[in-house]
């Protein structure tokens, strides 16, 4: 009796992975077709556009850029996914990472440590700052029942103004004399080493590490189980003695901590400080798309971040050859939309098939007995 069971098992897990991969790939292809039609309607040649994207995107130069652009997206998407896993919508990654970037960049200039420690210190400060900012939304939810979607969106605006005030009043360093004002430059001991000179820094490795840790914590640890249980059925989780408020607080702070790393590739790898025009924005929102596309799974998220990074890396070249670069953003948006729809449809089909298979497996067991 154990033989058919074990073969059924392996088959089940493979079937599930294939189903996920298949639905994501078919969604991407479908999105490309829809974008092609859009391009055609606006009088551009879709084949030329896609050809150009592939042609430029697959050069080693652009591949490095893809990895670089994927790095903050991985952090951002993991941050969002931690919340998603317990039905907690952290739309505030944007504010959390910009706040963390400023605080970490400023704190980095007030200490002197040898290299690895200095870098570690900056990363820890960034994570603590991100977590602290995110915890505001958690406290509002726990004590006043305020929906975190509303509070995190609002806190983004508060963060932006607060950061601007902090920066202009205290942290701004004009000694450079340029127009591009920043905080005081971080000492070399606090700078992340490059993997490829001037093209890609070590934060990419840290992003992969964070994705792996996300998997370990969320899918393998006791805390992760309680987190997922709270998302799958909050009432059952509460009835089983999983404290809802504490889970909200910890999940939100973990999410904020990872969000705090989003700007680190720039802060300690590129800019060596914080400046309003030097640190890119919008990663918080892009992370939501990447998390959705990656289905909150670390491998999916890394894959989706690479895809977005790949598309982003080609947009400048597209512009040069007369294809509007915004087509990249359109493709990304359509991919996410289509993926959400296709996922829903395919998971229903998958669920129905799973139920049928279970019924069949039961029947065959009964016959054998």
């Amino acid at each position, binding site marked *: 009796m154990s033989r058919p*069971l074990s073969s*059924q*098992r392996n088959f*089940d*897990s493979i079937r599930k992975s294939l189903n996920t991969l298949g639905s994501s790939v078919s969604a991407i292809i479908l999105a490309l077709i829809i974008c092609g039609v859009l391009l055609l309607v606006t009088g551009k040649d879709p084949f030329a556009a896609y050809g150009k994207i592939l042609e430029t995107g697959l050069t080693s130069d652009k591949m490095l850029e893809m990895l670089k652009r994927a790095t903050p997206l991985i952090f951002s998407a993991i941050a969002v996914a931690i919340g998603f896993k317990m039905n907690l919508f952290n739309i505030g990654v944007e504010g959390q990472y910009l706040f963390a970037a400023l605080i970490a960049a400023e704190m980095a200039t007030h200490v002197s440590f040898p290299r690895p420690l200095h870098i570690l210190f900056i990363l820890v400060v960034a994570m603590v700052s991100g977590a602290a900012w995110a915890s505001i939304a958690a406290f509002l939810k726990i004590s006043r029942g305020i929906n975190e979607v509303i509070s995190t969106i609002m806190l983004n605006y508060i963060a932006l103004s607060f950061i601007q005030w902090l920066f202009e009043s205290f942290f701004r360093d004009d000694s450079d004399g340029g127009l591009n004002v920043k905080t005081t430059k971080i000492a070399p001991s606090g700078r992340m080493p490059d993997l490829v000179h001037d093209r890609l820094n070590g934060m990419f490795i840290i992003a992969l590490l964070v994705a792996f840790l996300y998997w370990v914590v969320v899918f*393998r*640890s*006791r*805390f*992760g*189980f*309680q987190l*997922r*249980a709270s998302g*799958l*059925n909050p*009432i*059952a*989780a*509460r*009835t*089983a*003695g*999983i*404290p809802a408020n504490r889970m909200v607080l910890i999940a939100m702070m973990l999410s904020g901590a990872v969000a705090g790393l989003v700007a680190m590739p720039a802060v300690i790898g590129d800019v060596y400080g914080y400046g309003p025009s030097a640190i890119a924005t919008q990663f918080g929102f892009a992370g939501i798309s990447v998390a959705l596309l990656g289905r909150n799974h670390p491998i999916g998220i890394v894959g989706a971040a690479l895809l977005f990074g790949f598309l982003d890396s080609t947009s400048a070249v597209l512009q040069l050859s007369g294809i509007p670069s915004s087509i990249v953003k359109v493709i990304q948006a359509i991919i996410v939309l289509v993926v959400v729809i296709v996922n829903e449809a395919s998971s229903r089909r998958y*669920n129905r098939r*799973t*139920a049928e*298979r*279970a*019924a069949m*497996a*039961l029947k065959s*067991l009964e016959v054998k007995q």
Partner: protein
Amino acid sequence: MDRLKLAELMVGSDLPSHGKRTTKVGEKVQLSAHNLTVIAKDRKNPVRNVSFDIFESEIIGVAGVDGNGQFELCEALLGLVDIQGTVEIGGKDASNSNVRQRLDQGLAYIPFDRHREGLMLAASLWENALLGHEDSLSRGPMIDVDAAKKSCQEIIERFGVMTPNELVPAFVLSGGNQQKLVVGRNLAKAPKVLIAAHPTRGIDVGAQAAVWEEIRRSRDAGMSVLLVSADLEEILGLSDRILVMFDGEISAELDPKSATPQILGKYMTGTQ
């Protein structure tokens, strides 16, 4: 041909007959509520001044029309709502303990609605069996997946859950098998006290008989049970004593040997 005979023919085996028990009720109080009142902010307190003691190896049935405070009583005993009065589990005051602490003190709870309060339908059976037992099935901060799966296989085996394996999601099971899983999850760790709310609601007679048998067996091993049910046959068949709840209060305490559905019905509707 009566109902029992019909049910026996349907499941193909003798159903355990009602009422007969060979073991005795113990001496030790395992669960006690004293002047228990559930505080509600926006309405009349749903449970008022409820007191009872349940002894070792005793089943107390709580009969009542749904919505007369049974649900809130269970939540209060479990630690989910604000209360006045005291709750003692195994002789120790648990009034200020949280849910997890009470479960660790030996309490188990079969909830009213297995879909709403019991199961994560999209999750696998072994993860569902793990819910509430994470602490004992972990190694350090990590879930011991092998142990959790093994524990689920044991529940499947012992409680006769019809499933191809423990990896399928809970939604593929029939209602009766889902209920057996919930019952199994709560009885597997041999709790001292079981709160069983509608343990056999909406399941077939075969599964019902199996659940009753398991509750009886655990009772014989010393477990105390607070059985909340709308099924009067279940109440009369399993209970050693019957409390009737009406409008948030205990309106009567009856002996199942002399009680009948008619008598219960009168107290349940407040006409007596």
